């Protein structure tokens, strides 16, 4: 009981501190090793990792569609990574995520000045073009969609993941 009480207090303080900072759940820094952590953290579940950026025109169109997809598919772990080259802009990034309905997904922002190295860890052939979506099945098979994804394709992939389960 005490534990539960302490937990509630803890949660309350956390919410209060979050409110005091006036932020959505903080953007997580994407650094060396983060990609492997993401893969490990979501292992065994269907995951959609979306790379985008605040200065990318097609990304602005796609992001709200992805927000709706995330809402409609709680069974798919949606992860976003703001991969514009540094200096990246946390405030602009968070604002666009909020407007797209992606406040509560797991959201990262590139946080390493050596972006070639970050990209190399994710996919050695990736030159930085965004948007880019990586679909990861339960068994870890990765399919990469370069450019804006068709939501119909995401729906199809999602249905396949559920039917396999």
């Amino acid at each position: 009981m005490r534990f539960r009480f302490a937990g509630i207090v803890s949660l309350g303080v956390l919410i209060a501190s979050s409110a005091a900072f006036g932020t959505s759940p903080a953007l997580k820094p994407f650094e060396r090793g983060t990609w492997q952590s993401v893969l490990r953290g979501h292992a065994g579940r269907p995951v959609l990792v979306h790379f985008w950026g605040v200065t990318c025109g097609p990304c602005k169109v796609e992001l709200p569609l992805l927000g709706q997809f995330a809402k409609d598919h709680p069974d798919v772990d949606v992860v976003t990574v703001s991969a514009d080259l540094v200096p990246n802009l946390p405030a602009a990034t968070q604002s666009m995520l909020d407007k797209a309905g992606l406040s509560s997904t797991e959201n990262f922002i590139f946080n390493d000045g050596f972006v070639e190295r970050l990209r190399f860890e994710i996919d050695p052939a990736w030159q930085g073009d965004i948007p880019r979506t990586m679909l990861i099945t339960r068994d870890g098979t990765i399919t990469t969609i370069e450019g804006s994804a068709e939501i119909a394709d995401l729906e199809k992939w999602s249905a396949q993941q559920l039917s396999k389960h």
Partner: protein
Amino acid sequence: MIRTGLLGMVACVLLQSAALAQMRAPQVSEAACEEPTLRCATKATPAFGPDGTLWLVWMAGGRVSVASSQDAGRSFSVPTQVTTTRLNLDWGPDARPKIVVDRKGGIALAFSTFRDEAFNGQVLYTRSIDGGKSFAELKPITANNESQRFEALALDQDGTVFAAWLDKRNRILAKEAGQKYEGAGLFFTSSDDGGTTYAEAKLAREGTCECCRLGLAFAAPGRPVVIFRNIFEGGVRDHAVMTFADVATPGEVRRISVDDWQINACPHHGPSLTVAPNGTYHVAWYTNGKARKGLFYAHSRDEGRTFSAPMALGQPGRNPTRPFVLAGPAGMMMVWKEFDGEKTSVQMTVSRDDGETWLPPKTIASTSDTSDHPLLVSNGKQTYLSWMTKADGYRLTAIEDQP
């Protein structure tokens, strides 16, 4: 138990505060430092003056500065600040300040800033007529208030400065007409007073890719040629050249190769162009198309009507990027970057038969942190690699004739 809870509570708050602090602290930067000095630059662009002076323009700490070197980059003059306040300079991967130096020593500059929170750009220009001691007040290259980015400058033999850039002004008209608008327009202008004033901007081509640098050179006196990533039928972002009839008259769009890169995205990776004294166009570009993927080179001996078969550059497993080609005194030279997972190297190759064959590539520089695109610059006698790196600062390296 309560101890566990309190500890958990404190840990939660601390962890969250740490995470917030981390994201509120200045972002990890591609710059070595935040001052306007050359050491802190993220982008540096060189040009030789007619007297052999090397001029360098760079962006650092939100400012644009210029300095000169009389000893091939070993030392530089006291920098002149072109911008007096910190600006939101266009930091896109393919953006950089541009510089041309005319026969009288006049210096024309252009660069882009982000004009608003939606990252719409504005191309600004200025000029120095006192040997870089001072620069005129910054002016927009066009009065239009939409978005301009990725400007390019080139100097004609008669001193005319030609400028081209990507401009999204017509998206408003398209939207009002209920039409789909893709990419941006290729706009251009010229200055017959050395970059003091520019003529009214004109459209050369609508529907070009909006986030890649342009390449610009002169095919012959009075005839600029631009290379750009075009948007062909079906959203295919392949490369094209356009040779102007004169500085006010655009020409046809001529496709360089059918790479078939159909993508609705920002590749952030523009092409490079140089024109040899005999008029051959030499081009290098990046694609990720269905027909081919990677860096490629080709040449045209008929002003872009036909191009040689694309020649792949670099090692596919080493992510070759950012090609730059230049007609130098010792032949055609090309550089690009490769990355091995830890270090970035600059690869160089040379052709002594106008692009028909190229010598095996050689590593001419490397760095262990982030770096600007490798550029080539020539003073007519010697070609140099110009490369800004975070770890090792600015380098101007004479390229040996024999790789």
